[in-house]
Structure formats: C-alpha cells, structure tokens
C-alpha cells in the first residue's frame, strides 16, 4: 500500500522540474521538452486520483492529454523548424522580435 500523497508529491516534483526548466533553459527545444515534463507530471496525478476514487475517468483523461500533447508536439516542432529557418538560431534570447 502506497499513500496517494506519495504519487502526488512525485507528480509535483516532476511538474516543478518542468517549470524550472521552462524558466532557466535557453534552448527552445529544451524548453519544449520541459513542457512535456509538466504534462507527464499532471498525467501521473490524474492516474493516482483515478485509483483513489476508483473511477476510470481519470485514465480516459490521461489518454486525451496524451493526444493533445502529441498534436502540440507536432505543431510546436514545426514552428521551431520555421523559426530556425528564418533566424538561424535556437536561443530564445535572440528571438525577441515578431518581425524579421
């Protein structure tokens, strides 16, 4: 028997690591990976709550989160490719203008 709070704390640690990476990283691809890390942390808490309340809706919601994350990854990486093509850099500090 593992308390649900342990799972929630693990999910909180993963989410915080994602937030920290989102704030301190300068490479746009790594920032994007930090977002994926945050989504994974949230998924773990969904599954933990589903087990706590004995209802499968939490697992269904994880499925939907994964679908949206996959779609977001495809579009986001395409945007990164487009940004790199016009600016020749992946450093977010140098991507500070909407106009070229």
């Amino acid at each position, binding site marked *: *028997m*593992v*308390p649900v*709070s*342990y*799972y*929630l*704390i*693990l999910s*909180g*640690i*993963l989410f915080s*690591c*994602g937030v*920290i*990476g989102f704030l*301190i*990283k*300068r*490479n746009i*691809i*790594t920032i*994007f*990976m*930090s977002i994926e*890390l945050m989504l*994974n942390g949230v*998924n*773990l808490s969904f*599954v*933990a709550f*589903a*087990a*706590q309340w*004995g209802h*499968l*809706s939490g*697992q*269904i919601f994880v*499925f*939907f989160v*994964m*679908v*949206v994350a*996959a*779609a977001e*990854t*495809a*579009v986001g*990486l*395409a*945007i*990164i*490719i*487009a940004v*790199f*093509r016009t600016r020749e850099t*992946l*450093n977010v*500090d140098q991507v500070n203008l909407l106009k070229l």
Partner: protein
Amino acid sequence: MLHLILFLVFGAICVAGAVNLLVQRHPISSALSLVVVMASLAVEYLLLGAEFVAAVQVIVYAGAVMVLFVFVIMLLNAGEEELTKGSSVAMVIGVPGVLAGGLLVAWVLIRRSGQSAVALGALPGYPKTIGWLLFHEFLLPFELTSVLVLIAILGAVFLAAKPDTPPSPEGRKG
C-alpha cells in the same frame, strides 16, 4: 512492501531523469533523460493498475514524441546551449521560494490525504474497459480529438514546408 519499494526505486529514477534534463547542456542529453522519465513513469502507471495508459505512454510518448524530438534536434544540428546571465535577485528569492512552496505543498498533501492508500494495481484499466468507455461515455470528445489531430497534421505540414519554392516544371526528380 514490494509496492512501496518499486514505487521508490522508479520514483527516484524519474526524479533523477528530470533533474538531469535540467542540468545537461546538450539537447540530445536532455531528450534522452526525458525518455528515462517517461519510461519510469510507465512503470508507475503499471503499479497503479493503469495498463492501457502505461502501454500508450511507452508507445506514444517514449516512442513517437521523443523520436520526433530527437529527429528535430538532429535536423537543426542543435549544439551546446549558450547561457545568458540571469538576475541574481531571481536566484536569491527564487530558490528559497521554490523550496518553501514545495515543502508546504508536500506537508499539506501528507496531512490531508495521508489516510488513503492505493494497493498494487488498485484500479485495473484494461484496454477493453477503456475502449468501452471511450466509445460510449466519451464518444464526442474522442471524435473531437480525431479532428484535432487532423488539424495538427495539416498545420505541421504547412508550417514545416519549405516556403516559396516554385514547383519545378519537369516535376520532382529524386
């Protein structure tokens, strides 16, 4: 007891991977540590009984999404990340703030939900039950996500396509 040991071992691997993602400077190293995080999260899902979610986690996240990431990193030839000077105020206030907030959240979680514990494989999410729910109770969201994925595919192709390349008159050649 076995449940707790497995949870702690794979939770530690998970956190180590997440911290390694932050520490590494090269995007490929970060991507590989993210694969470690996702694989050990799949084990955590299995411990909770979510078999379908664990399988999808390995196939979709650790498989497809990370392959996409690694592919883009190699396509763009991303090198070492150059650091920029952060503000010292952010470090002085931020690190203790994160620690205090994290400890507060952990304390509240342990105090308020300490009684409820989940057994090994508490809620078996077999593919059959998940599929039944998806096609009965959650049919409309399921169909909407299929539309979303279609739009995402079209958007990705449109965004990543080479801009203003005139079609060659003799058609494509190798």
